[in-house]
């Protein structure tokens, strides 16, 4: 502890010095970020993240800007989808990166508890507080200390619809859940299935549940359920399942959902011969639509936010990538401040593929209306919560054929069995959390 405090003192003084230099040089740039300028010539930083291909190029452009401003050299390495393994390996080898951008809050938590990553400096924290909503800061906080800067976000509260079919049927963008069901009925009357669900695996269904639960029970209960502080037999769960059953048990849903994989459900809506008009999932559906090639995102492939339930406030369930620092070196701290500033995100945003949770980012920079709408839904949401199934033990929330995934499939197949579903979920959760 003593050594730790000492180290922290050094950080603060070092950062203080940097802060002074920075204060002298600020000017220009928008959104209340801080311009990073300091002389870190000769310093070499390493940054690792999952991004490769076009995303890597865009992120490297962000890092190039940092290099240009500070003179430091930044080396970027992509770890693909092996984030936890790669970082553990680097740590065991005694050569951790300066900064890692990771997609799993649980990994950040583990690294923080083990003392592998360092909390944000006061200056970096100031930049974060200025640009991020409290929900995002809380998500980067472990035991009262804020460790991370959320650089990229995913919005999983988007309902995608085929505008051609909505126009043909005369359906409109719904205002709330009841209106949602009515509009789907209008589409069903016109001869198309209201909505297509790919329930062949459980994850799209868990996203349904999470979105409905956040709206029915509110963020506090959402957190409690995530941590299994309340049981799955809680009345709020029953209420949520009833809401879902009002759709899943109706004939608004295209039949055969439990045999359909998720990409097919997108093709059913946006393919060459659409049979359904709506599909729910995250912002990545835009990628599926583009890959299919029969519909154009922004023209006939549009989305609206997951409908409010019982007058709930705008809420978003999503994911994201958080940058964490493995050293308290001033250059590393400067990089963290840079990543937290709107300027960093604004380099990538116009090129597409980045939804920034940073509220300081100018929305007009997004390359098209759809991505702007996704980002605005995310930053203007009163409540943001991380995807629940990513926060629960993987035996419960991330294993095919078991736990959350499987019980939601069972419930999809038999939406009348609310009590049995809750009991099965509670039993699965109890055994997974016990380990």
């Amino acid at each position, binding site marked *: 502890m003593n050594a730790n405090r000492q180290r922290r003192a050094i950080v603060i003084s070092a950062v203080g010095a940097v802060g002074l230099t920075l204060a002298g040089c600020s000017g220009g740039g928008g959104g209340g970020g801080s311009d990073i300028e300091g002389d870190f010539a000769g310093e070499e930083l390493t940054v690792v993240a999952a991004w490769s291909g076009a995303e890597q190029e865009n992120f490297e452009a962000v890092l190039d800007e940092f290099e240009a401003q500070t003179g430091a050299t930044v080396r970027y390495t992509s770890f693909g989808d092996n984030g936890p393994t790669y970082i553990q390996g680097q740590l065991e080898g005694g050569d951790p990166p300066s900064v890692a951008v990771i997609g799993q809050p649980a990994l950040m938590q583990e690294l923080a508890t083990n003392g592998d990553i360092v909390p944000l400096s006061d200056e970096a924290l100031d930049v974060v507080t200025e640009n991020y909503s409290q929900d995002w800061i809380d998500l980067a906080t472990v035991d009262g200390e804020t460790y991370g800067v959320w650089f990229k976000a995913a919005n999983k509260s988007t309902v995608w619809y085929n505008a051609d079919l909505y126009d043909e049927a*005369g359906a409109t963008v719904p205002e709330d859940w009841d209106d949602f069901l009515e509009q789907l009925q209008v589409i069903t*009357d*016109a*001869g*198309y299935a209201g909505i297509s669900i790919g329930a062949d695996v459980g994850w799209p269904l868990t996203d349904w549940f999470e979105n409905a639960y956040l709206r029915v029970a509110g963020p506090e209960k959402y957190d409690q359920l995530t941590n299994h502080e309340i049981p799955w037999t809680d009345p709020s769960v029953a209420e949520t399942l009833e809401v879902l059953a009002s759709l899943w048990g109706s004939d608004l849903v295209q039949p055969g959902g439990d045999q359909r994989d998720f990409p097919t459900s997108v093709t059913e809506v946006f393919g060459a011969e659409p049979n359904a008009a709506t599909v729910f999932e995250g912002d990545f559906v835009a990628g599926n639509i583009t890959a299919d090639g029969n519909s154009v995102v922004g023209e006939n492939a549009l989305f609206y936010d997951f409908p409010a339930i019982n007058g709930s406030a705008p809420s978003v369930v999503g994911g994201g990538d958080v940058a964490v620092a493995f050293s308290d070196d001033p250059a590393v701290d400067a990089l963290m401040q840079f990543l937290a500033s709107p300027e960093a995100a604004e380099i990538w945003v116009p090129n597409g593929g980045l939804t920034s949770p940073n509220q300081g980012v100018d929305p007009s920079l997004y390359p098209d209306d759809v991505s702007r709408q996704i980002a605005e839904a995310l930053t203007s949401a009163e409540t943001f919560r991380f995807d629940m199934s990513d926060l629960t033990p993987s035996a419960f929330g991330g*294993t095919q054929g078991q736990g959350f995934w499987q019980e939601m*499939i069972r419930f999809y197949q038999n939406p009348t069995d609310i009590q049995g579903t809750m009991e099965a979920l509670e039993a699965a959760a109890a055994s997974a959390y016990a380990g």
Partner: protein
Amino acid sequence: MTAVAAAPPAPAPEHAPERGGWRRFAITAAFLSPALVFLGAFVLYPIVYTVVRSLFDRTGGRFVGFDNYVTMFTNDTTFTAIRNNVIWVIVAPAACTILGLIFAVLIEKLAWKTAFRLIIFMPMAISMLAAGVIFRGLFQENPNLGAVNAAIVAVQGWFSDDANYPGAGPREGTGIVADRGVISTESAVEPGSVQNFPLTGIRQSNLPEEATDAVEVEAGDGEIAGTVFLDVIRGGGGTNGEIEDGKSGLPGIRVDAVAPDGSIAGFATTGAGGEYTITGLDAGQSYTVALPASNFDEGAQGVSWLSASFINAVVILSYIWIWAGFAMVMIASGLSAMDRSLQEAARMDGASEWKVFTKITVPLLTPVLIVVFVTLIINVLKIFDLVYVIPPGASKPAANVIAVEMWTQSFGGGNNQGLGSALAILLLVLVLPSMIMNVRRFRQEKAR
């Protein structure tokens, strides 16, 4: 296994006290040691460690005794896996062996036997994974994707006419209801009145070309008239149940007037604007007006082969498709090595072919059949790839087997290597009897 193999009493050189004995022992040990080290490191140690690991909880830090073994049989998921393995062991090896025997005996009598053998053996050349992908494709529910359902739908299509408006339904709250495909009036209608049928669930693009906007009609004495129309305006709007501009008539629909005794008193077919008039009705009667189900029949639908009810059959079928060829080749080689004079003699004595087959060929083939059968049992117990690939997510639990469950628990997200190890030990215990049987048989053959 080692214990069993070492059981027979043999002169044990290590007990010999003289120098020469030691020397011989040292040499033997030197020659054996590479193999022993290898076996120890890659067979014995993993088995022992798995046994130990199976007595600990998921973190590996807490000793739980036999809890994992209890869980194994009480937990729904793992128990289904064990039950499925039992089904597999009962069905698959026997089916493969019998089919292999039939193929081997029958093909032997054919002229092009090598070609036929090659074809039946060919699935063995395909990896289990690829075979799984093929079967998953074959049995897809959607007839546009799955060949099996496409065939079923095509055959059924020959025997039924295409309906004009598949999937259409009544507009709710307009006095008409659907019952088992028949759309009819809720209450009886008297002649001289108009009965309209506002329907929904038909796509604008599926309307026949001759269809025009819905036409209103009037009914004369002894007539029931009305309009069958699509109660949806392209682009929305309008009042539900009303005939308005933009609502299309539905031509070609048969309309029946059904008398209270169930007989059809008269019928008509709708015109371009959906209008119909049923004439010649008894003015003192009232009739139920119905649109027969043949108008709306959705035609043959695919069978949900990959659903929980059929999935085990499909996976086992794919296994048989692959391994029947193996059984056939083994049995055919046994056949060719067989002394044919017995069969010849039996035939000379007037035995029928069936008698020859059951009383002579099969008994002579028994050793080969047992080898095939036991090999298949061991193989079936370990089945993994097909079960991993074929079932879609929703029916995975129904198709689960021990090997897949072991993998899921240990590495596939279950995060419980304790339970995974216990399952591995169960698998080992199940395989042991057939292994011992094989070893015994080898020894007997040697002794002969």
